[in-house]
């Protein structure tokens, strides 16, 4: 596997002034690092990768890395990525998005991208909160937990992102945490190789906002929590619903082979061109 210094040298933008904007203890760096390791393992040319994001802490990931990078508007990374992928189907298009970006303001785009089955890999960083704006509740903040816009506890029920994208038709769904870095790399690799719309949900921690207001302890303690609650799908399949309460099932949850959008569109072009040949000028 590539060493950390090689990784930094090969993939980071040296002309961009570091340090990055993320807080000490943030999980996003771990996720970005393992995305890069996955890409390196797959030996994909940097010129062939487009890395697209929306707004929020996760939205800042593309600027640091040496790909074709596109930092778009809040919630809209997927439709930008859809247009780009259709224009340049040869590109590997990766999207990084947070829980608020992907499932609140971008929720409509997310479900329709799943339904279309366009060959894009979406990494959803789920830290249960809007971090960049200072800790407001998001669509994944657990019921009863606190945020700076629900100090007495959240009365809304959270989305289960993996279940949501599965229901919407994603043909690959994987879930893991920022503690399980080898599984994270492995699932991202599988997601990139999958032909169709793939989602990788990564449970992570925001020690600065969600962790602080909910007394979850330090980043290390929050990582330990991820280790404790995670249960691999192979084990979870043998567990009762009661045993699974409060646990997070990880691993590749869905993997289906269904027609991909760009490939189907190519057949539309072929048919349309054949029909046009028969037409008088």
């Amino acid at each position: 596997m590539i060493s950390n210094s090689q990784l930094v040298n090969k993939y980071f933008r040296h002309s961009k002034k570091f340090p990055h904007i993320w807080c000490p203890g943030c999980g996003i760096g771990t996720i970005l690092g393992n995305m890069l390791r996955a890409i390196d393992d797959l030996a994909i040319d940097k010129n062939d990768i487009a890395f697209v994001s929306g707004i929020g802490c996760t939205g800042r990931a593309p600027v640091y890395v040496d790909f074709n990078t596109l930092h778009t508007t809040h919630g809209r990374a997927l439709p930008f990525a859809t247009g780009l992928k259709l224009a340049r189907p040869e590109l590997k298009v990766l999207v990084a998005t947070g829980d608020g970006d992907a499932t609140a303001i971008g929720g409509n785009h997310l479900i329709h991208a799943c339904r279309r089955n366009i060959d894009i890999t979406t990494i959803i960083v789920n830290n249960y909160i809007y971090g960049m704006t200072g800790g407001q509740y998001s669509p994944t903040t657990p019921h009863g937990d606190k945020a700076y816009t629900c100090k007495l506890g959240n009365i809304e029920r959270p989305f289960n992102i993996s279940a949501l994208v599965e229901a919407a038709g994603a043909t690959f769904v994987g879930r893991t945490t920022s503690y399980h870095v080898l599984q994270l790399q492995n699932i991202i690799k599988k997601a990139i190789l999958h032909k169709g719309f793939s989602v990788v949900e990564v449970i992570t921690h925001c020690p600065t906002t969600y962790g602080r207001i909910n007394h979850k302890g330090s980043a290390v303690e929050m990582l330990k929590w991820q280790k404790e609650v995670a249960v691999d799908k192979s084990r979870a399949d043998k567990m009762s619903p009661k045993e699974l309460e409060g646990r997070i099932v990880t691993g590749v949850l869905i993997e289906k082979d269904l027609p991909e959008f760009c490939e189907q569109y190519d057949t539309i072009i072929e048919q349309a061109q054949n029909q046009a040949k028969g037409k008088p000028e």
Partner: protein
Amino acid sequence: MSKKTSYQLMQGNEAVAEGALAAGVSFFAGYPITPSTEIAEILSDRLPETGGKFIQMEDEIGSIAAIIGASIGGRKTLTATSGPGFSLMQENLGFACLTEIPLVIVNVMRVGPSTGLPTSPSQGDVMQARWGTHGDHPIIVLTPSSVEEAFHYTIKAVNFSEKYRNPVIVLMDEVIGHMRARVNLPPRSMVERVNRVQPNMPPEWYLPYERSATGVAPMASFGDGYRYHITGLVHDAKGFPTTNPSEARDNIRGLFSKIERGFREICLVDYELMEDAEHAIIAYGCMVLSARSALEQLRKSGIKVGLIKLGTLWPFPRFAIEHYLPQLKTILVPELNMGQIYREVLRVNAGKAVIEKLNRVNGTIIAPDEIVKTVKGMVR
């Protein structure tokens, strides 16, 4: 499409679709909305025939996002919508202005605000086209006043967007969009196509937002080996976010300066019977049709009146009015809104001539007789 010039019966929206194809548009993303839907329907058929692509998105926010993405991939792109959809596009229109992505939005206007009077004509989106997205930004807005112009202006819109790396809006009213007329379109080989300037330096020397002598930076497509960053944050010449005041100034002011340089070329204005005119009608879109008819009647009555036809609304072609102000006593601005261009005319006039407005916001057009009556009243 016939290879030689020939007459055809065509609808305004159809002419837009033909213009888009003639200009080299190869990607369309849109969402159904009356009275613009014909453009999407036609291009969904015609684009794949030419190897182009069409996608129907989940909403207009996604539609403009998808054409920005495709434009970054190197395609010439266009979307079509009407008022409510145009409102939804404002967010990403601002993104395209700041990141300097070529694209065309066709807005076939209907009466607003809100759902308004669907399918009834209006010119109520003139100011929204100028200032609808937040923040200071330049914009190019063209407005055809005939079916044939819908074809030519769509081509010009694509060409301007490529040349200036800026979104261009084609504002049509429902009358022009749905009107059928005899048109005489040039063969494809005669249509001028402008392509964005691409970088020719090695990738390691490429600065994606460093303006060349023309004021516009060369634009690399994603996947062409020039790995760079595009962001809706204010950015430096490398494309990276910055909060440095001088870099922020260069970024925003640079957007304006490239359009200012092209001002004369971008401003499309026609003059009819203006040589000896003492009175003028300033009109655009379907109001040109009423104004022309009124002009004929007024000239027959011996009133020296001419027409200034605005093909470009933004940047506002102030010189077109300034040039004739010394000879003009009165100017009438008939519009299907509460007076959006009237205010611009007032601003340029600076108290020299008598300016009056004639407005309608009920879903019907202003008839020639009403213009005749108003001009006669002003002359008296």
